[in-house]
């Protein structure tokens, strides 16, 4: 039995290395000139490391514009989706009102609707509103997020009701209770929601790809994908790897800063309640 465990441990370590290796390979490749990166047998450590790829990508493409676009989209997505999720989560988790269950299941069922069926009508609507190729068109559809609302309800329903009742007794209005009591004691929830909203918005690909017609609304992820490959063919390895690193870096830094909220958020939203 001990033997089996050690064997499993070896498999585990092998799997961990093979899953992490692509990320290492990307960063390594981003610091090498194409000729060295493409060499076979490969160098497993960066050969003649250089930042030339990063210089090239910033000179040749409007990367700063893309980063700015991605940041604006992320700020609005996080801000709107966190506020709206918390509001709805509070109502569904802590209040009792006619139609509550029907409304909750109606909203939750949107999680089941494949986003892709809404793709073409949404595109047509945005176009007719004159929002095609603008930043609001990129972030508006993610402003409301059924998953976030569900997570918020799960969390809020565990908050102690007596604090809220006491505040009500003291004559505090619902808006005051929400902003001054509910939100401050829901910090872990707000953190988890913000992190997921940020990651989701930063790596979102299909919708931003379709709705952005030019660099004025293209996000970093879409920009890097479009300059790196076309239908399965790599265009320029150095540009691709430095671009991919630029997309990945904020996500990885975020992950290391907030690892415990990631785990908490996943398990809270996943099941139980």
């Amino acid at each position: 039995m001990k033997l089996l465990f050690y064997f499993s441990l070896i498999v585990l370590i092998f799997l961990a290395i093979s899953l992490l290796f692509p990320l290492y390979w990307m960063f390594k490749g981003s610091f090498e000139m194409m000729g060295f990166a493409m060499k076979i047998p490969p160098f497993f450590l960066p050969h003649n490391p250089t930042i030339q790829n990063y210089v090239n990508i910033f000179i040749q493409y409007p990367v700063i514009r893309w980063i700015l676009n991605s940041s604006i989209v992320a700020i609005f997505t996080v801000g709107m989706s966190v506020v709206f999720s918390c509001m709805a989560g509070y109502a569904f988790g802590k209040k009792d009102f006619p139609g509550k269950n029907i409304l909750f299941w109606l909203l939750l069922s949107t999680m089941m609707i494949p986003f892709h069926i809404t793709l073409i009508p949404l595109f047509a609507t945005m176009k007719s509103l004159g929002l095609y190729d603008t930043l609001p068109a990129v972030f508006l559809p993610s402003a409301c997020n059924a998953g976030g609302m569900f997570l918020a309800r799960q969390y809020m329903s565990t908050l102690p009701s007596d604090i809220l009742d006491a505040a009500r007794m003291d004559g505090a209005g619902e808006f005051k209770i929400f902003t001054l009591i509910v939100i401050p004691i829901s910090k872990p929830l707000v953190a988890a929601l913000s992190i997921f909203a940020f990651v989701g918005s930063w790596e979102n690909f299909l919708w931003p790809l379709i709705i952005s017609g030019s660099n004025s609304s293209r996000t970093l992820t879409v920009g890097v994908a479009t300059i790196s490959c076309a239908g399965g063919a790599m265009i320029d390895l150095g540009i691709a790897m430095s671009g991919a690193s630029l997309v990945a870096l904020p996500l990885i830094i975020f992950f290391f800063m907030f690892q415990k909220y990631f785990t908490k958020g996943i398990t809270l939203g996943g099941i139980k309640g």
Partner: protein
Amino acid sequence: MTRGNLFHRIWKERSAYFFILPTLIGFLFFSLKPLIEGIRLSFYEANLRQQVFIGLDNYSKVFQDPFFWLSLKNTFLFVVVLVPLILFISLFIALVISKLSSFWQSFFKGAFYLPAVSAGVVMSLVWLWIFNSTYGLFNYILSIFHILPITWLGDDNPARVAIIIVVISWVVGMKIILYSSALAAIPKSIYEASEIDGANSWQKFWNITWPLITPMTIFLLVTLTIGISQIWEAIFLLTGGGPHYATTSLVLRIYQLGFLYFRFGEASVYAVVLLMIVFTIAFFQFRYLNKKLEF
């Protein structure tokens, strides 16, 4: 309850409606309305300029199109291979991790989740390099074992295998965390009691662990099936649906028909088919499995 009473209650709880209003508006505009629109468009000859009602013509056109059946078959294939593989790998990893100290547990959870948190675009680009048949790492490793180079993304089955590897690498992280939390919720005392009765590890797994994590397995089975049936991003970036449409999925066809050829009507037929598939899965979940699940 009388009518006046109901209105009174609604008025009393008016703040609750205010709190859900933004989400409700978002739902109406970004989910419900486009959903109905999407179904409607499938009965229209539609492009950017005009819409003409043509009844079921789009459906008969799509159902006679060999590419539709091919993309349906490919999507089905990806679901059938990927879902069990992901479940097996993540349960295996979660089980091995659960035996380790809490430091190593969170270390490995982080290690496996890192690829999941890095964008799909990022992972696809790196794997595109690794799978390259002339300067990629995969064929180099094979050459060490004297295996001839494979044109990973240029042949039907190797391309499918490549897609499967990439998707696994970025999906398992989250499933491991979920399985770990299910395993951690099992009380230690049950295992201790069974040890006194002389149960071995194998018996402990099948008689205690497996039944107790079944709700999580079902949850993952349903969400994964729904998720993988919408597989798109890795295919778009790694193969573009090729070679010879061997990796073209339903959603990739929606993208191609809708946004490369602007044949909105036909693309909507694909979307309706996808909707039916997802609803069937969801229906079976509620009909047969909901009793076992606790939400």
